């Protein structure tokens, strides 16, 4: 078995571009899914009854579907249903955002629900409005519990962006597998891909651990 690792260095520009796309997808998805998640969580908790059911249905549906299927579905079905042809990147982003928004909605809902009701009741008894109680009492405490969960969702999302490679979004996994197919350097390219994800993902995972220690809530 002869190995030729120079193939990795030769394709450094493509790999760097793929890495950039991976980060871009992660950042853009979170930029949509955090406000989206807040909106869905608020709808589910305080919305009118039909809206609540709709929000709950959306969350349950996307939490119970494999992301890769959502990606395929978005790729093949959305253009036919809407008549709008999106680029692969936009389709991948849409699928990721739909998925992560559902998870974030649950994170926000759980965070807000974790604050004992007595605290809101006490705030109301002191004469605060519901909005004030939420803003001054619930949100500051809930944030401490929400942030570490959002951080670990971030790491999962960073890894899950690899799934949009199946619809030819040129992120890190797709680029690596393309180079593999062109050069037949299977072991080298796949190992390089794993190593790159490891180098990028490991510090993020460690950062999440640190955040979880830092924000630990003791009851």
């Amino acid at each position, binding site marked *: *078995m002869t190995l030729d690792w120079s193939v990795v260095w030769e394709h450094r520009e493509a790999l760097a571009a793929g890495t950039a796309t991976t980060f871009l997808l992660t950042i853009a998805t979170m930029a949509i899914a955090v406000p989206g998640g807040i909106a869905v969580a608020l709808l589910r908790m305080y919305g009118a009854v039909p809206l609540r059911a709709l929000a709950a249905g959306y969350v*349950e*549906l996307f*939490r*119970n*579907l*494999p*992301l*890769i*299927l959502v990606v*395929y*579905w978005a790729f*093949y*079905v959305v253009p*036919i*249903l809407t008549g709008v042809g999106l680029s692969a990147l936009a389709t991948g982003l849409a699928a990721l955002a739909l998925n992560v928004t559902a998870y974030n909605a649950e994170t926000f809902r759980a965070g807000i629900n974790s604050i004992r009701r007595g605290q809101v009741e006490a705030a109301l008894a002191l004469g605060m409005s519901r909005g004030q109680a939420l803003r001054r009492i619930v949100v500051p405490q809930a944030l401490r519990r929400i942030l570490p969960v959002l951080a670990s969702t971030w*790491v999962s999302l960073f*890894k*899950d962006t*690899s*799934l949009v*490679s*199946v619809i030819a979004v040129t992120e890190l*996994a797709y680029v690596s*597998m393309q180079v*593999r197919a062109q050069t037949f350097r*299977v*072991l080298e390219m*796949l*190992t390089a*891909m*794993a190593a790159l*994800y*490891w180098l*990028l*993902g*490991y510090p*993020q*995972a*460690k950062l999440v651990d640190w955040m979880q220690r830092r924000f630990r809530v003791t009851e």
Partner: protein
Amino acid sequence: MEFDFRVVADSWRFLAYGVGVTLLLSVVSGVASLAAGFGVASLRLYGPAWVRWPVVLYIDSMRAIPVLVVLVWTFFALPIVSGITMSPFTAALVGLTIHLAAYAAEIVRAGIESVRPGQARAALALGMSRAQVLRRIVLPQAIVRMLPAFGSLLSITIKDTAIASVIAVPELMRQSETVAGQSFQPIEVFTVAMALYFTMLFPVTRGVDAVYRRVAHLGRS
């Protein structure tokens, strides 16, 4: 626009086979990662110091690398390194287990560490051996507390088996792709696939919650 679900009815055997493979792969890799997870966690908690750091490195690495990458590497690259050729199903089983065992190990560790150390000290003071403490005091409480996390791990396992479609395991995702490609009716096929996955996954999450509510009192201390 017209929908024609006959394509799904015509190829129902093909899709049902996919459901079968998905369930089989989920159950086998779920059980394997659970067993491996207990092993890895006990190495991390009770192993000698020189074993602990490679174990921590393994766990954290699996948290950093996507499943897709692990599966593709196991199927395409591992045979080159090891000389062992694996069927797609075996490769998926190995890859998923390597990946998920790390998560299972973290669940086991968190469960065991959640039992207050005072209890173990009290048991030791009463003259129990370390193994007895673990078996009689720590594990009965810890396992109950691990249940909800194992439930979500099982649902993650089922979802991750869909990624095995990229290494041509004939599970539901792959079979749906094939039918969609041959019939040119992706809407019908993928929508049915969604319904099938939802029907498999929803009862798992709900079922584990229901079981946990019944046994939760056993984990209190």
